[in-house]
C-alpha cells in the first residue's frame, strides 16, 4: 500500500496512527446563502499523504470518475458543467442533501474493496481511515484533498444510472459535486415530472437524499444559473461579479493596492479566501493579487468558453464580454506594472502570460501602444486636475455672451490661446469651442524647451536625428521618454511638425515591426527627408544643409515686404544657433517687420539685432524713432491689431515676447505680450529710444 502510493513510511506512520483532534482543524465559514458550513482542514502531514494518494489514483484510467462528473475533475470546471446545458428550453436542477456527510467510513471502505479499485480488506480499511474523519461520525471531511475524488468515485454508478434516465427522457445530464443538472428542449411537463421522479428514486437507492427544496425547473424566460454560471445568452457570470472586479481595480488604481487588501472583495455572504486568510494570518499583497487574478481568470474562462473569439461578430453580446474581460485583464496588468507597491514578481509574469494569449492585448503591449498610452495618460492627468475641472465647471455655469466674453478675457491673462480669440456669433458654439480648448493644456514654454533641447541631448531625440544605428523599438522608447508626455503642451505648429516627422516612424514600424534595425536614419529612404525637414524647421544657424539661417531668412522677409534696404539694418554678426520652431518665428518676424515698416516714420530706420545674454538669445526688432508715445500706452495689450495677435500666438511657448517703448514722461515701459503683465525696468533692453519687439529664446 505504502509502496503503491509512494508515501514515505515515517510520514505515513506519523499521520495515520496519530489520534485525536490534531488530525483535522475545524473551521466554520459562511455559505453563499449565509448559512454556516463546517470545514475540516487536515494537518499538514495528513494533507501531504492525501495528496500523494490522490495523485496516484487520478492517473489510473480505470479509477477515473464518470464523464458526467465535472466537479473536482482535472480539466473540468463549473464552466464545462454549465456549457452542456446552454440554449436549452428547460433546465432541471437537483441537489443532494448533505453530500459529504452522507458518505461515511463504511461506504468508503466498501467502495475501495469493490470494482474498479478491488483493494484488499486491509488496504481498503486504511484508505477509508486515511480519508474519513476519525471521530464518531467517520464521514468524509469537507476540506480533505481526497474527499472530492472519493465522492466522485462513489457516484460512478449513480452517474451511470442517471445518464440512462436522461437519455430515455431526451435530456443532457451533468453532475458537479452535489449539483445534478438535466437539460432538455422537450417542454412537456409530464416528461420533466417523470424525470424528476425516476431520478429521485435512483438517488435514494444509491444512498443519497434529494434536497427537495432545491429542485428547480428553469425556462429561458428566467435567469438560468447552473453552478453559478448564467447560461441564458451564451455563458456569463452575473453583472455584480464584473462590477465588483472593475470597482476593485479602480480602487487599486486610485488608492493603491494595499488600501484594498483588507476590504471584502465581493459584497455577498460567501467567505472569500482573503477573508479566510485574514483570520489566520496577516493579509498579504501577494495573496490579494493572486486572488484577484484568479477572479479575472475565472471571468475569462467563462466568456471565452463561448467560442466567439473567431466569429465574434455573430453575437455582439458575447464579443463585448470578451472585450470586457480583455479590458479588465489589461487594467490589472497595467496596475501591476505601474504600482509602486512591492509584490512577488512572479505574479506579473503570470498576468503577462495571460495577456500574451490574447492577440489584441499583445498588440496593446506594443511599443507604439505604450507611446500612445503615455500621451493619453498625460492628457487624462491634465483633465483630472482641479484647475481644469474648475474652469470647465465655471464655463458650464455661463449663460450669456457678456459673461462668456469676461471669462475669455480672464483666461487670456494666463493663456495666449484665448487672446482675442475669434468665436462665431452663436453662443453655444462659442462655448463648445472654448470647452474643447480647455480640455487640452495651455502651451508650456518649459515643456516646449524640454522637447526642443532633447534634440541635442545624448539620450534625447538627438538619437533620432543622427546617423547611429538604432532599432525602431528604441526610437519609440525615446519618443516615450522625451516627447509623448509633453506633446499636448507644445505650440500647435511645432506639435504638427513633430507629429508629421513621427508618422514616418509609424510607417516604418507598421512595415517592418519594432525589432527592425535602422542602420542610418539620415540615409533611410522613409526617414531621411522628414528628418532633415524637422531639423531645418527646428534649428536656426546650425549646419547649412540641416538648419535655417536666421540672417538669410530675415533678408528674404525684408524683400518680401518690400522695405527699402536703406531703412533696415541687420545686426547679426555671429551665427548664434538656437532651437525653436522656424516657421512660427519666421512668420512672427514677418508680421512684426510688416507692422514696423508701416508704423515707423519715414526718417527712422528699423534695426534687427541678435545677441547672446548669458544662456539666452535675444532677437530685437526696433526702430530709432525719437517720437515718444503717450504715457497710457502699453498699459495693456488692447492696442494690438490682428498682426500682433498672431505674433503673440505664434511665439507662445517658443520664447518670451515683450514690447518696449519710450513714453512722453521720459520713462521706458515693457509689456509682456504673452500675459499682458508689466515687466520690471531692470529688464530694459538698454535702448534709450524707439519702439522695440523683443524675443528672448533659450539657448
Amino acid at each position, binding site marked *: 500500500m505504502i509502496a503503491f502510493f509512494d508515501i514515505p513510511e515515517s510520514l505515513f506512520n506519523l499521520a495515520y496512527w496519530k489520534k485525536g483532534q490534531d488530525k483535522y482543524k475545524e473551521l466554520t465559514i459562511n455559505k453563499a446563502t449565509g448559512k454556516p458550513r463546517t470545514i475540516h482542514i487536515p494537518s499538514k502531514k495528513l494533507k501531504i499523504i492525501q495528496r500523494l494518494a490522490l495523485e496516484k489514483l487520478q492517473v489510473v484510467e480505470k479509477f477515473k470518475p464518470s464523464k458526467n462528473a465535472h466537479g473536482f475533475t482535472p480539466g473540468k470546471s463549473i464552466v464545462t458543467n454549465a456549457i452542456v446545458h446552454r440554449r436549452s428550453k428547460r433546465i432541471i436542477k437537483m441537489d443532494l442533501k448533505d453530500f459529504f456527510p452522507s458518505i461515511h467510513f463504511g461506504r468508503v471502505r466498501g467502495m475501495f474493496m469493490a470494482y474498479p479499485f478491488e483493494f484488499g480488506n486491509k488496504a481498503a480499511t486504511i484508505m477509508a481511515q486515511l480519508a474519513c474523519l476519525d471521530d464518531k461520525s467517520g464521514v468524509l471531511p469537507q476540506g480533505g484533498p481526497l474527499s472530492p475524488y472519493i465522492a466522485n468515485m462513489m457516484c460512478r454508478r449513480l452517474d451511470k444510472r442517471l445518464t440512462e434516465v436522461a437519455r430515455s427522457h431526451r435530456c443532457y445530464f451533468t453532475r458537479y459535486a452535489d449539483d445534478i443538472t438535466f437539460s432538455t428542449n422537450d417542454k412537456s411537463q409530464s416528461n420533466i415530472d417523470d424525470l424528476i421522479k425516476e431520478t429521485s428514486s435512483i438517488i435514494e437507492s444509491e444512498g443519497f437524499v434529494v434536497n427537495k427544496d432545491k429542485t428547480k425547473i428553469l425556462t429561458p424566460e428566467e435567469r438560468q444559473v447552473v453552478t453559478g454560471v448564467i447560461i441564458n445568452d451564451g455563458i456569463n457570470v452575473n453583472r455584480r461579479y464584473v462590477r465588483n472586479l472593475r470597482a476593485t481595480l479602480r480602487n487599486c488604481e486610485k488608492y493603491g493596492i494595499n488600501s484594498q487588501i483588507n476590504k471584502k472583495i465581493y459584497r455577498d455572504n460567501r467567505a472569500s479566501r482573503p477573508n479566510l486568510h485574514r483570520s489566520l494570518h496577516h493579509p498579504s499583497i501577494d495573496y490579494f493579487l493572486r486572488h484577484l487574478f484568479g477572479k479575472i481568470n475565472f471571468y475569462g474562462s467563462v466568456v471565452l468558453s463561448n467560442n466567439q473569439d473567431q466569429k465574434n461578430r455573430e453575437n455582439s453580446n458575447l464579443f463585448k464580454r470578451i472585450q470586457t474581460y480583455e479590458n479588465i485583464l489589461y487594467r490589472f496588468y497595467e496596475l501591476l506594472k505601474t504600482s509602486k507597491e512591492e509584490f512577488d514578481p512572479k505574479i506579473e509574469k503570470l498576468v503577462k502570460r495571460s495577456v500574451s494569449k490574447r492577440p489584441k492585448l499583445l498588440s496593446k503591449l506594443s511599443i507604439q501602444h505604450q507611446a500612445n498610452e503615455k500621451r493619453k495618460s498625460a492628457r487624462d492627468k491634465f483633465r483630472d486636475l482641479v484647475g481644469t475641472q474648475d474652469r470647465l465647471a465655471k464655463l458650464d455655469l455661463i449663460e450669456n455672451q457678456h459673461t462668456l466674453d469676461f471669462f475669455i478675457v480672464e483666461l487670456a491673462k494666463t493663456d495666449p490661446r484665448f487672446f482675442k480669440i475669434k468665436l462665431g456669433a452663436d453662443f453655444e458654439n462659442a462655448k463648445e469651442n472654448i470647452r474643447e480648448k480647455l480640455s487640452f493644456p495651455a502651451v508650456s514654454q518649459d515643456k516646449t524647451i524640454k522637447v526642443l533641447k532633447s534634440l541635442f541631448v545624448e539620450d534625447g531625440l538627438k538619437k533620432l536625428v543622427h546617423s547611429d544605428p538604432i532599432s525602431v523599438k528604441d526610437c519609440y522608447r525615446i519618443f516615450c521618454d522625451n516627447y509623448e508626455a509633453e506633446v499636448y503642451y507644445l505650440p500647435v505648429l511645432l506639435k504638427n511638425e513633430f507629429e508629421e516627422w513621427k508618422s514616418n516612424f509609424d510607417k516604418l514600424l507598421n512595415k517592418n515591426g519594432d525589432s527592425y534595425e535602422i542602420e542610418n536614419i539620415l540615409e533611410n529612404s522613409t526617414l531621411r527627408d522628414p528628418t532633415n525637414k524637422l531639423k531645418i524647421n527646428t534649428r536656426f544657424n546650425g*549646419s547649412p544643409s540641416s538648419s535655417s539661417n536666421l540672417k538669410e531668412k530675415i533678408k528674404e522677409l525684408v524683400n518680401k515686404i518690400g522695405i527699402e534696404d536703406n531703412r533696415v539694418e541687420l545686426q547679426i554678426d555671429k*551665427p548664434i544657433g538656437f532651437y525653436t520652431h522656424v516657421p512660427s518665428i519666421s512668420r512672427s518676424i514677418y508680421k512684426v517687420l510688416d507692422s514696423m515698416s508701416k508704423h515707423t516714420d519715414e526718417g527712422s530706420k528699423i534695426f534687427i539685432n541678435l545677441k*547672446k545674454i548669458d544662456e539666452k538669445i535675444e532677437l530685437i526688432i526696433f526702430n530709432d524713432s525719437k517720437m515718444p508715445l503717450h504715457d497710457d500706452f502699453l498699459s495693456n495689450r488692447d492696442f494690438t491689431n490682428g498682426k500682433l495677435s498672431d505674433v503673440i500666438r505664434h511665439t507662445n511657448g517658443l520664447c518670451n515676447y515683450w514690447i518696449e517703448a519710450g513714453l512722453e514722461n521720459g520713462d521706458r515701459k515693457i509689456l509682456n505680450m504673452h500675459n499682458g503683465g508689466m515687466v520690471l525696468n531692470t529688464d530694459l533692453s538698454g535702448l534709450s529710444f524707439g519702439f522695440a519687439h523683443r524675443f528672448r529664446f533659450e539657448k
Partner: protein
Amino acid sequence: MTKNNLNILLIDKNRDRLHRTNSLIKCCDSSRYCVDPQLKVDQEAYESNNYDIVLAHYGNKEVEQSIADGDWDSGGAIIIFFSGGFDKDKEKFNDVWWVSASYIDKKENIYTLLNEVCKK
C-alpha cells in the same frame, strides 16, 4: 597656409572616436599635421594656442555653445565642425566647414578634407 607644420585642435567628447580620428590624421601625413586631441576644451586653451585648424565635434557643449556661436576667438583658425547629425558629407558656409561624422571616419576623406582646407 604657409607653415610646414599645421597645428590641429581636435575636440571630441567621444574618446574612441577622438583616438581614431587622431590616428587617421596622423596616417595622412604625420610630418605635416601636429594634432592636439582633446576630449573638451576651455576658452583659454582654445584662444591661446594658435591653432591653424580646429576640427570639433558639434555635439560637444563648448563647441555648440561657444565656438559655433563665435563667442570664443579662433584667431583665424579654419573651423571644421563634424557631427553624426549632419546630413551632407561636407559643405562650407561663411568660411566654416561642416562635415558628417561618417565622412571623417575614412582616411581618404580626412586626407581630401585637410588638403582642400589647406589649399585655401
